[in-house]
């Protein structure tokens, strides 16, 4: 359920401030633990003195977008997410949902369906972000989720961070959709796994993106894995289609940062976060020369 009365959805966001003609956006798309690479990217940008005018996050990327926008140091952010995103999150089943799925004639099915008991993730989000709001962010922050009833992309830019992140990470079948106000939300990746359009809409010209395709199942051995496989197929095609459109529609530059992982990173490989951050840093360093030239040519 929605928390405080301060929560607003799809409200007109605060305008991102730009100190020069460049308006740099950092867009962190879906990708669970891999999104920690954003901390490596942010490390490089901070070290090089490259300011970010807005941060956009979606799904797993919403966690890191919020941490970066709040100005939390990389080391602290790494520690926070290692404590927050662990395998225990999915250990406890949401039995009511299971019963409603298996015996709908006895226990009527409800749209707030999710196989995992989501109380732990909510508790951890509250520990990590407390009562913090978008208004406390040092950099304008936009987090996306999907309206469950009409598929619309909804951009959160004010109110409770916990509500917005919980909505943005409502992984289908796993976590129950999340209600904010009178709307029910599912994971932001379902409408756009890499919400570049939000940055374009809010006036960014140089858009640095970091996002990942959903992994395909090695072996499909259960109904849930079958559902995940279909979800990956659809979301990956959606990612490419939207990314193509945004690349062609944008008037300046979209710079993809693509970390190269030598090993498979699974949903809860929290212990690999330091390695993921390193790869994010390496990938950002590869694009740094061009980013510098671009900013100096399009800046003041």
């Amino acid at each position, binding site marked *: 359920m929605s928390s405080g009365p301060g929560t607003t959805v799809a409200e007109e966001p605060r305008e991102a401030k730009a100190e020069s003609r460049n308006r740099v956006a950092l867009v962190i798309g879906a990708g669970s633990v891999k999104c920690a690479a954003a901390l490596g990217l942010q490390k490089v940008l901070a070290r090089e003195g490259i300011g970010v005018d807005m941060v956009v996050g979606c799904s797993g990327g919403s966690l890191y977008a919020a941490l970066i926008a709040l100005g939390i140091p990389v080391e602290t952010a790494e520690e926070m997410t290692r404590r927050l995103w662990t395998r225990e999150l999915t250990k406890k089943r949401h039995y009511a949902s299971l019963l409603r799925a298996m015996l709908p004639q006895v226990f009527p099915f409800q749209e707030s369906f999710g196989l995992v008991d989501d109380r732990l993730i909510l508790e951890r989000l509250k520990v990590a972000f407390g009562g913090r709001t978008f208004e406390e962010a040092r950099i304008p922050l936009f987090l996306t989720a999907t309206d469950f009833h009409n598929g619309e992309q909804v951009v959160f830019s004010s109110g409770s961070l916990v509500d917005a992140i919980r909505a943005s990470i409502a992984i289908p079948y796993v976590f129950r959709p999340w209600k904010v106000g009178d709307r029910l939300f599912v994971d932001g990746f379902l409408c756009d796994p890499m919400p570049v359009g939000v940055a374009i809409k809010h006036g960014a010209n140089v858009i640095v993106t970091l996002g990942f395709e959903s992994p395909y199942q090695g072996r499909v051995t259960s109904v849930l894995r079958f559902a995940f496989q279909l979800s990956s197929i659809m979301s990956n095609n959606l*990612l490419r289609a939207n*990314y193509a459109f945004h690349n062609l529609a944008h008037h300046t*530059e*979209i*710079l993809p940062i*693509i970390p190269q992982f030598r090993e498979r990173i699974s949903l809860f490989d929290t212990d690999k976060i330091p390695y993921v951050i390193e790869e994010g840093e390496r990938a950002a360093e590869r694009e740094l020369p*061009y980013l510098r030239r671009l900013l100096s040519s399009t800046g003041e």
Partner: protein
Amino acid sequence: MQITIEKKEIVTVVSIEGSVDGMTAAHLIAAFREQIGGGSARLVGDLTSVDYTSSAGLRALLETVKDARQHGGDLRLAAVRPEVLRVLELSGFTSILQVFVDVDAAVASFTA
């Protein structure tokens, strides 16, 4: 960015060296346009030495491929490095552009 032009029978091979991005896109479009304007619309972009492409680079490729096709030809890519191919795939370009392992295969595709 360095651009080298070479004729191979009915095909014009445009070898590009460097990044295809916002700083170089206009130069690349002009080079391709000159070839198409001169009657050489069958183009192969040799990307052996291209290490990066951004959205502006993708728009340059798209503009060229549309121009070439309108003039009865095509732009086909050859020897694309994995990091550049990844961007082409992510942005859906591999669904509209033909990509070949090397220049010879791309050139041969025009006469096949």
